[in-house]
């Protein structure tokens, strides 16, 4: 049984890898000038580029995390996909076209081109690294989880597989083929999640009406068959009704020899390494902090989240997307600013379609895999869903397809992030030329791996949310004020980024390590509500006091960013300039225009 499941999973992954390789080869055959190492030659059409952006954006948090949060928290979890998508609205309105026309490939590029300050470039570099690393951690954790669930291998194997494959891809592939690969990955992920969800919805339609309606009942989800749950870490369970079960391990602080346990209504502690067996029809005990009854789960704010934390999350996701290094790098291959806008419009459509499925899988998981509510490891919901509803080879096949899609998600997000982080490391941190890009790739991995292997209590989606909060508090004000306000100075920008972004980092790091009590975590893991306004405020105030540092060519730079593409004023980062941080950007005007 287990062998068959593993076989299907590995087979599906191999098929995805082979198809991806073919697409990559096809892409690599396209014409590419050698100067365009990091960004594809700018000939990528909006639909292709939009699929590539979406493919890279749909990461562990989207593929596994959202469904897990929906299973646990219900309606409140839907703010995550809404925020992930709304981020592209903000990006479109304020950043897409002007950033493309500025010709900046990375955020440090933008900072330097706009304000001509090496100091600010350094600050931006630091934040690219922090955000990239924060974002990489959940990808590696997701890979570890998938391998543990599908094959029962230790978690580090999954992280290692993703690292090796992505590094191999970067060492051998070129950016243009990566555009094709990432675009293809979007469709892989949509299929890998969409098809199983469709099959399960059809299956659900054939179930008894009472079972279908149980989602709206004022009762907890229940085990539809006798289920054994293995609890790996200590949990506190809310038991909805008196129940008799079998347990072995540590229950309520006492050693439990294998045998029957009686639980009254209320809270019960279960130690790590305990196995619990529930009879069919037993209501599901739910991990502390999550809604117990299905009707609480269905209603807004039923998860117990505070309005402030939800509002803060919306701010972080809405404004953080524009500050993600791997997203902005993908805008560079757009031919011009107008194409950047069209691309974003298509991205909104692609994400809107995709995010239907994590939501539906979360709802289905509430019916079919309630046992995850006992362990709290709801990130595995999507992976276990087919096995919870079906049995035999259909369950194994669909499970394999989902696992392959999940791996595609970790791979594409991780490779985009590693490319951005390594790119910044090689141009700005390591003494460098283009060839140092490869060792930089290895350096880029080291820190997130260390984090991923240390235990984090956060769910994948929450973990990714931390990176968004930092991006929203550092790069969002830099981009918005840099693009739209003449008065911004380098000192103001650096002060705002260091204060807002720094506070955000300080406040999310304890959450990332998982050392906080739930009460503190609720406040500190969502710092955007105060760090974002603070960053804006400090940038504006300090810039006002340092007005003599406004760059002399600010009008020309703003013109380049806002002038329509047809006038041909936009400027691309000169690729020959790699590794020479601080050198003045070369004009691409062929001597037609003077610098003031």
């Amino acid at each position, binding site marked *: 049984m287990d062998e068959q499941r593993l076989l299907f999973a590995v087979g599906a992954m191999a098929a995805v890898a082979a198809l991806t390789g073919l697409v990559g080869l096809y892409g690599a055959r396209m014409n590419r000038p050698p100067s365009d190492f990091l960004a594809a030659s700018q000939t990528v059409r909006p639909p292709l580029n939009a699929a590539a952006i979406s493919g890279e954006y749909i990461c562990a948090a989207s593929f596994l995390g959202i469904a897990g949060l929906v299973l646990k928290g219900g309606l409140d979890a839907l703010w995550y996909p*809404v925020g992930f998508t709304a981020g592209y609205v903000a990006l479109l309105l304020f950043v897409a076209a002007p950033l493309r026309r500025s010709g900046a490939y990375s955020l440090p590029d933008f900072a330097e081109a706009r304000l001509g300050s090496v100091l600010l470039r350094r600050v931006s570099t630091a934040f690219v690294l922090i955000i990239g690393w924060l974002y990489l951690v959940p990808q590696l954790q997701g890979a570890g989880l998938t391998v543990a669930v599908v094959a029962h291998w230790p978690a580090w194997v999954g992280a290692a597989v993703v690292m090796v494959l992505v590094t191999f891809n970067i060492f051998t592939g070129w950016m243009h083929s990566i555009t094709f690969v990432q675009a293809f990955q979007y469709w892989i992920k949509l299929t890998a999640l969409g098809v199983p969800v469709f099959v399960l919805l059809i299956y659900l339609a054939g179930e008894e009406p009472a079972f279908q309606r149980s989602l709206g009942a004022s009762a907890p989800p229940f085990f539809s068959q006798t289920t054994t749950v293995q609890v790996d870490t200590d949990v506190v369970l809310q038991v909805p009704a008196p129940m008799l079960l079998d347990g072995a391990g540590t229950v309520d602080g006492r050693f439990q020899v294998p045998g029957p346990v009686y639980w009254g209504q209320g809270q019960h502690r279960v130690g790590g390494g305990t196995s619990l067996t529930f009879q069919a029809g037993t209501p599901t005990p739910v991990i502390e902090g999550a809604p117990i009854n299905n009707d609480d789960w269905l209603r807004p704010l039923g998860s117990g989240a505070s309005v402030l934390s*939800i509002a803060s999350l*919306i701010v972080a996701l809405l404004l953080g997307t524009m500050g993600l290094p791997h997203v902005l790098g993908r805008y560079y291959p757009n031919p011009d600013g*107008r194409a950047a806008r069209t691309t974003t419009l298509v991205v*909104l459509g692609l994400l809107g379609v995709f995010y239907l499925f994590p939501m539906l899988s979360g709802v289905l998981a509430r019916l079919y895999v309630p046992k995850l509510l006992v362990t709290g490891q709801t990130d595995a919901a999507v992976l276990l869903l087919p096995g919870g509803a079906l049995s035999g080879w259909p369950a194994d096949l669909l499970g394999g397809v989902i696992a392959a899609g999940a791996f595609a998600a970790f791979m594409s997000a991780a490779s985009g992030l590693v490319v951005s982080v390594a790119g910044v490391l090689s141009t700005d941190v390591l003494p460098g030329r283009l060839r140092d890009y490869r060792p930089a790739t290895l350096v880029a991995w080291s820190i997130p791996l260390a984090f991923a292997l240390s235990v984090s209590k956060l769910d994948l989606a929450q973990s990714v949310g931390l990176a968004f909060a930092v991006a929203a508090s550092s790069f969002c004000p830099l981009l918005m004020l840099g693009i739209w306000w003449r008065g911004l100075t380098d000192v103001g920008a650096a002060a705002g980024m260091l204060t807002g972004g720094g506070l955000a980092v300080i406040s999310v790091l304890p959450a990332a390590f998982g050392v906080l009590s739930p009460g503190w975590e609720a406040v500190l893991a969502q710092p955007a509500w105060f760090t974002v306004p603070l960053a804006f405020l400090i940038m504006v105030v300090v810039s006002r006091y340092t007005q003599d540092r406004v760059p002399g060519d600010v009008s020309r730079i703003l013109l380049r960013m806002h*002038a*329509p*593409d047809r006038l041909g004023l936009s400027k691309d980062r000169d690729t020959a300039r790699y590794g020479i941080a601080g050198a003045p950007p070369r004009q691409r005007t062929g001597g037609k225009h003077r610098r003031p």
Partner: protein
Amino acid sequence: MSGELDQQGDGWQEVEAALQQAMAPEPVKGRPGKRERVVLAERRSSRRVVRTLAEVEEQTGVGEMLVRQLVRDQLSLAVRLMLLTMMVLGGILLTFVLAPSLGGVSIFGLRLPWLVLGFAVYPFFIALAWFYNRSADRNEQDFTEMVEN
């Protein structure tokens, strides 16, 4: 290596712009304004435009004013749409808080809050983005026409 490209840069961009416009499907059929723009791009004389552009780029009085006006128009468009987005998202959250009874309303067997957050917001985002792209293009077109005349 980019020097050669630069020499012919403006000419190429013109040809490309004209080609793209010729090849791109008409987004809105039957609009008289669209056809006019293609004609404009084709008959534009590159040398004249380069001269006008130089004036705009060197920020002489008129050029500076035009650019400031463009940036202001684009910014006010973006800010208005951003406020709308935030009002819609914040409004949904606030409605959930103030009128919890709405959480129990079902439409076609599906709860209203799930329909709103799970489905309805996405078409809203797309419509808003489409409207923004159209309006931002129009602002830029106005600017281009000002520069070219």
